[in-house]
C-alpha cells in the first residue's frame, strides 16, 4: 500500500520546477498579460525537451508512457508557475488519439505530438454551457464538419485539432485547413488564450468511438468522456498548484508588510485566514491523487471521482485566490500585483468544462440520489 509519490514523481515535479523557475518569470508573465500572445515558443520547446508534451503517450510512439497521475503532478507545477501555453488541450488531444485512434493515426500523430513539434488542440464546447459530450450538437457529413466551437485553447501555433461532435464522436482536423476560421477571444487568463472556431465543411478524419487499450472492458464509456474526465482532473491539479502558490506568496507578503508597527502576519485575523487557506489546499491534494489514480486503475470510480474533484478543488481554489487578494489589500487589487496571474488561473480552471454546481449535479446523478 502506498498512497504517496514515488522518487520518480518527485523528480518529475522538481525538474519541471527548475524549468519554470528559469523560464517563467513574473516579468515574462506580465509581458504576456499586457499582450495578446499567450504562447511562448521557448517555454514550449523547453517543456517538450524534458518530455512534458508526451508524458502519457506510449513509449512506442516516443512518449514516457506514464499514468495520468504523473501528468496531473506536472499540471500542479504548471499551475503554480502560471506557465503559458496550451498544455492542457495538447494533453487532451494526445489522450484522445491514444485512447481511440487507429494504429495508423497513432503512428502518424503521436510521435510528433510527443516531441512537441506538433501542437495539439481540443475543440469540444459549444455555446450555452455545452461542455459534456452528450451536449455536443455539431456533426459532420461525408467527413466534413460545419458549425462553431467555443472556448478552445487553439492558437496560431496549433497544428492538429481533436474535435468533438454530436454523439460524443471525436475526429481530427488540420488546424490550417481551408474553411476553418479562428476568431480570438480576449479571455480571462491570458496565459491560456481562447478562440472561437468556425468550421465550414472542413475535412474531418474520425477517431473510433471505443475506449481501446488500457481502459479495457470495465470502461464502457466513450473515449470522449474519458478525455473529459482527464481534463477535470488536470484542471483541478492546475488549480491546486495555483492555490498553493498564492498561499505561499501571501504568507511571505504578510511577513514583510507592516501596519500598526508590526508585520501583519502577527495579527491573528491574518494568520487564521492563511491557516484556513492552507487547510483547504492541503486537504485537496489526496483527492486529486485519488482521482488521477482512478483514471488508470479504478474505472468504475472514475466518473464520480473526477466530477467531485473538479467541483471541489476549483471551487476552493478560487476562494483561496480571493482571500489572497484580500490579504494583500490595495496592492492586491492592482494589475501590477503578481497574484492576479494565479487568481485568473483558478477562475479559468473553475469555469472551463463547467461550474462546480454542474459537476455536483453530475455527482448526484451518478450516484442515483
Amino acid at each position: 500500500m502506498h498512497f504517496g509519490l514515488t522518487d520518480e514523481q518527485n523528480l518529475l515535479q522538481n525538474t519541471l520546477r527548475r524549468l519554470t523557475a528559469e523560464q517563467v518569470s513574473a516579468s515574462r508573465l506580465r509581458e504576456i498579460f499586457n499582450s495578446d500572445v499567450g504562447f511562448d515558443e521557448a517555454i514550449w520547446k523547453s517543456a517538450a525537451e524534458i518530455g512534458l508534451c508526451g508524458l502519457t503517450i506510449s513509449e512506442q510512439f516516443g512518449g514516457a508512457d506514464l499514468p495520468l497521475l504523473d501528468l496531473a503532478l506536472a499540471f500542479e507545477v504548471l499551475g503554480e508557475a502560471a506557465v503559458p501555453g496550451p498544455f492542457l488541450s495538447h494533453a487532451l488531444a494526445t489522450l484522445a488519439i491514444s485512447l481511440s485512434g487507429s494504429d495508423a493515426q497513432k503512428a502518424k500523430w503521436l510521435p510528433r505530438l510527443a516531441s512537441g513539434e506538433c501542437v495539439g488542440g481540443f475543440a469540444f464546447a459549444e455555446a450555452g454551457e455545452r461542455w459534456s459530450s452528450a451536449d455536443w450538437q455539431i456533426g459532420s457529413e461525408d467527413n466534413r464538419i460545419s458549425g462553431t466551437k467555443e472556448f478552445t485553447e487553439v492558437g496560431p501555433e496549433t497544428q492538429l485539432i481533436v474535435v468533438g461532435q454530436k454523439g460524443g464522436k471525436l475526429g481530427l482536423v488540420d488546424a490550417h485547413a481551408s474553411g476553418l476560421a479562428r476568431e480570438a477571444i480576449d479571455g480571462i487568463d491570458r496565459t491560456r488564450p481562447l478562440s472561437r472556431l468556425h468550421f465550414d465543411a472542413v475535412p474531418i478524419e474520425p477517431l473510433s468511438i471505443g475506449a481501446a487499450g488500457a481502459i479495457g472492458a470495465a470502461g464502457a464509456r466513450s473515449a470522449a468522456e474519458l478525455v473529459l474526465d482527464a481534463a477535470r482532473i488536470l484542471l483541478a491539479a492546475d488549480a491546486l498548484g495555483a492555490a498553493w502558490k498564492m498561499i505561499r506568496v501571501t504568507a511571505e507578503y504578510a511577513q514583510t508588510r507592516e501596519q500598526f508597527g508590526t508585520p501583519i502576519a502577527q495579527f491573528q485575523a491574518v494568520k487564521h485566514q492563511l491557516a484556513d487557506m492552507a487547510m483547504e489546499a492541503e486537504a485537496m491534494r489526496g483527492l486529486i491523487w485519488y482521482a488521477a489514480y482512478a483514471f488508470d486503475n479504478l474505472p468504475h470510480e472514475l466518473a464520480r471521482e473526477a466530477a467531485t474533484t473538479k467541483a471541489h478543488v476549483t471551487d476552493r481554489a478560487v476562494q483561496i485566490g480571493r482571500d489572497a487578494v484580500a490579504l494583500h489589500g490595495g496592492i492586491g487589487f492592482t494589475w501590477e500585483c503578481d497574484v492576479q496571474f494565479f487568481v485568473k488561473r483558478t477562475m479559468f480552471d473553475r469555469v472551463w468544462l463547467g461550474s462546480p454546481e454542474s459537476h455536483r449535479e453530475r455527482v448526484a446523478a451518478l450516484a442515483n440520489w
Partner: protein
Amino acid sequence: MELEYGPQYDAFREEVKSFLRALPPVLERKDFLRQATELGYIYRHIPKRFGGSEQSFDPIHETIVSECFDAHPFDWSWRLGPQNVGMLVPTLLEAGSDEQRERFIPPTLVGDAVWCQAYSEPGAGSDLASLRSTAHLDGDEWVINGQKIWTSDADQAGFMFGMFRTEPEADKHAGISYLLLEMNQPGIDVRPLRQITGATHFFEVFFDNVRTPADWIVGQRGEGWRVARANLKYERSLGGGPRLRQRFSALLSLARTTMRQGRPATEDPVIQQRLAEIEGEVRCAETMTLRQLSAAARGEDALVMLPLLVNKLYGTEIGERIAQLGFDLIGSEGLMAPTRSTWDSVSSSAADTDWVDQYLFELASGIAAGSSNIQRNVIGERGLGLPRDLRRPAPGETAR
C-alpha cells in the same frame, strides 16, 4: 501509488473476521481484550511484561483490526475511554517508573483500572500552563487543593492523572508536576456538569486536602508539562476520514428517507448540491487519512506534516457541515429538545442519530482538545512559518 493492502493483509483481515465470528455470544469485555491481546491484535506498542502484545509498529495492521472490531456488534464499546490507553499508558511507558508501569498498566489495559484526566481548570483552558490547582509535599504524601473541569468519566474512574502546580516560585511551565491519585477518598468532590445538550458527560472535580503518595509522581518535580506531552509521539491520529464517512452515510440515509413535496429530499436539487459539496469534503478527509496511513506505514511522517496539522480543524468543519444539513433536513423536529444522546449511541446509523443533539454536540469538536482558533495558530506558525502571536508579557517579562 498502490491502494491494495496486499495479500498478507487480506489474509490477516480474514483471520480477524473468523476470530470475531467464533466468539461466544455472551462475553465480557475484559476477556475479549485479553484474547485479542494474546492473538496480537491490540496493544502492539506495549511490552508483554506490562500486558501488551509487544510487536513492531504496523499501522495497516492496526487499521484492519479497528475496522473489523468496529463493524462487530459487541454489547459494549471495545475501545476503553481514550484517556486510558491513549494517554495514561503511553505517558507511563515514556516517563513512569518501572513500579508505576507494573502496577498500573496491566489493569488499565483490560478496563479494571479506569482513569480520568485532570488538566483543564476554569481559568486554564487554551492557556493550560496557567493552571493553579496546587500540590505540596507533607511528609511522604502530596496534598492537593483546587479545581479541575471537563473531566470525563470522573464518576466511574478509580484513578486520576493530572497536572498540578507544585513549584509556586518557578516559571509557569516549570512549576507543574504530573501526579496520579485515587478517586475514592475524602476531600474529592465530583459534580456533574450539564452540557448545552442537556445531558451530562463531564464533571467538575474539587480537591480539598486530597492525598496521594509522594512516589505517585510521574517524572521529576516540575517536569509535569513535559511529561504530559510525552505521549504525543504515540499519538498517531490518522485523521477523521472513517468517522466523517460514517456520519455522511447517516446523513445520506436521512436525506433518502426525508420526504419533501412527496419526494425524497435526495431528489431536491438544493439538497443534492449540499450533499455533493459535503461529500467532496469527506473525500478530502478520507484521502488525507489515506496519505497519513501510507506515510506512517512507510516511516515517512515528515511527508505528511501539513495533514497532521490540519486534521483536527478540517474534521471539525466538515462534522459541523454534516450536522447542519441533518438539522435542516429534520425541519420542524429541530424545534424539539434532544431525546437521545449522541455520546451514548454505539453505532452512528441515521436511525440512531438525534440530529438536534448531534447539531449541538458538534460544537464540542471545535472547543475540546485544542480549540479551532488554537489550531489555526498552530497551522499558521508551524505549517506556514508565520511569526508567533502577539501576547501579553508575563510578569517580569519585557513586552515585545
